[in-house]
């Protein structure tokens, strides 16, 4: 069976390589791919959309529908992980451990037990508890704001340099994931709850699809950002520019929310209590 699989893989690979002999030469400026649709993108992008980064204008404007659905794919993946992994909260909590903030004493609460002292004085602990590493914690504390700032820059500057919603969203999401790795899941959850990350994911896609629908309501075609002209300054071409920015912000929110959401469900096996 294994050999049969190998044989099939080799055969398919051979067929695919065989077809490449008829490909246009590598880097050929005369190849159909660089002669047919690309010239218009390259020559007119700036005057039609006011976006100097052609990748962004193709991705979000000329072929904006694809990107909207790609964002939806990211969102769907987040919902899928939530649907399959998330364990609904149990009525009676399992045995758990707390640390008294002032004295550093640790308590183990039995199945269904309660603490009679005020809860603010206690801090819940992971059952597989590792002592916090001071250096890692502090370094990450100082690093995370800058990472997030850079993420925002990447989103906002996608019109002019490599970047945009997907990349910036990933950086923003990674900053929160770094927080849960350097501290623990609960610290990160306190900063940004499960509901928040899920709603970020949802509303990010909603901004994208909603912008499209808004264009429809204003009497233009779906995702024709030109329709936003009356709402935004700078004339119809700048409306496209701003529309793209709006949509990129949506993509960034969706990607960030989904990354965090998926990470938590995977890392804690859907329990959101402990993990890592």
């Amino acid at each position, binding site marked *: 069976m294994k050999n049969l699989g190998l044989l099939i893989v080799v055969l398919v690979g051979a*067929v695919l390589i065989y077809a490449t002999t008829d490909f246009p030469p590598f880097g050929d400026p005369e*190849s*159909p791919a660089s002669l*047919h649709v*690309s010239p218009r993108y390259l020559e007119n992008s700036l005057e039609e959309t006011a976006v100097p980064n052609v990748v962004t204008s193709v991705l979000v404007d000329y072929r904006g529908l694809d990107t909207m659905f790609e964002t939806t794919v990211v969102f769907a993946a987040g919902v899928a992980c939530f649907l*399959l992994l998330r364990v609904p909260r149990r009525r009676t909590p399992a045995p758990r451990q707390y640390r008294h903030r002032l004295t550093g004493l640790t308590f183990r609460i039995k199945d269904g037990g309660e603490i009679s002292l005020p809860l603010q004085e206690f801090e819940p602990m992971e059952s597989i508890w590792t002592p916090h590493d001071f250096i890692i914690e502090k370094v990450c504390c100082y690093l995370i704001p800058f990472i997030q700032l850079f993420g925002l820059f990447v989103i906002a500057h996608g019109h002019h340099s490599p970047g945009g919603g997907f990349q910036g969203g990933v950086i923003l999401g990674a900053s929160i994931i770094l927080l849960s790795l350097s501290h623990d899941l609960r610290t990160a959850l306190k900063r940004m709850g499960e509901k928040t990350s899920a*709603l970020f994911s949802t509303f990010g896609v909603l901004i994208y*699809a909603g912008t499209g*629908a808004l264009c*429809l309501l204003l009497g233009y075609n779906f995702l024709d950002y030109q329709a936003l002209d009356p709402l935004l300054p700078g004339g119809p071409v700048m409306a496209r520019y701003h529309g793209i920015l709006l949509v990129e912000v949506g993509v960034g929110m969706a990607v960030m929310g989904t990354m965090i959401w998926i990470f938590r469900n995977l890392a804690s096996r859907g329990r959101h209590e402990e993990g890592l």
Partner: protein
Amino acid sequence: MSQYYPALLIAIPLLAALFISASGWLRPALCFPLALTALGGSLLVSLGLLSNVIRGIPDVYLFGGWPPPWGIYYRVDHLSALVLAVVSIVGFVNLIAARPAVEKEFPEKAAPFYTLYVLFVTGLLGMVITGDAFNLYVLLEIAAITGYALIALGKGRAPLSSLHYIFMGTIGACFYLLGVGYLYIITGSLNMEDIARLLPPLYESKVVTVAFVILMVGIWLKMGFFPLHAWLPNAYTHAPSPVSSLVAPLMTKVMVYVMIRMVLTVFTVDYAFLVLKLNDAVVWLAVIAIVAGSLLALAEKDVKRMLTFIVVAEVGYMVGGFWLGNRAGFIGAVLHLVNDALMTLCLFLAVGNIVYAKGNSQWDSLPGLFRTMPWTMGALVVGALSIIGVPPTCGFFSKWYLLLGAIQGGHYGFLAALLFSSLVSVVLFFRIFEISYFEPFGASHGPDHGEDGPAGREAPLGMLVPLWMTALGLVLLGLYTGEIVDRVIRHAVPGMML
């Protein structure tokens, strides 16, 4: 208003899916009404599109206002309008039937379930309506990811079956993408009609041949065409019942549509049938699919699992009918696509009711069902008659066209396979009827339990109404076959096949 239909068709369910997801966190009671409104809305829009097409109003929609091939556009013709109507009807009817099962099996996960459900339907609708080869891939991804997640929600071995499906499905989607990539490198375009315009001088190129083959293999993998069907029975059996009755009727049918669309619009009939001359070989593959699917179905002792093998055989019907390459075969294939979506829906809904009442659909739980669940079993009978092909149910008419196509094309192997599979279906379903009607149901529980009849009650009204709507739909479709063929399918037949 009607010029916005193609955008609304996609925008309504997409926005609704997002609202459902948000309301799951803010106001959970709204999830189901939102889903129902959204699919109801897209059902109305798709019917509007169909009536536009019949009246001859063209429906082309440019997204972002960019003309093709630079932008993406949606184009509705007779074929896609018909399939759109089928997809949205199945999605809507099944949603009504899904509610009791969702509330019984996973009430706390209703919000993500409905979100993914609506997204799945959105993906399929988009695949049918789009005029762009790459856009189709993105929508295929949406339908696939949501489908995997919904299937994995089942009990027992469902996650494993879904994982298997993910592996196979991803390979299929990759092949499709690779095929589109090959086409792009040789033509420089992603728009279907634009590719078709640029291809004829390149027919001799090896790239086009390999692109065609790899596209077809990818699509066949996704539709479960016989040697590539291995993921299908497990995935559809272990999925929760509201999911199997959604995915089983739609996914395979939409992939058949994609195959037809690729051949018709992208590669053109001339290329597929005259240049490559693959048609005879593919029809023989279909013959094998039909025979193997029917035989494998015979071996099963679980109604739901048996149905999944019938799905495999039915895929063979449609692929074979289309590749016969004549008018009757084409009409038969498209008509069967429509009919089979509803027949499969009817049967899977009936099995869903049995699972709802009995916990499973093994043969052991069948005895006495005609007495305890007369309405469910009545609809099952209608669906079964349609699969077998008894007039006036719709299954008869599409099979008639397929047989006619086989005779006209002189392909007697396909003819024999069709007849054989119909006979096997008779055996399959009458065995079920026999067990559930005649087999004593009290005896196995000992004398104490035999007196007051078998346990179990009829499924709730919320599941029976959609089931009977579908069952009556089967008969109505049969009675209106002439209309459908005359007004819609006839116009979709490519010129060469006349």
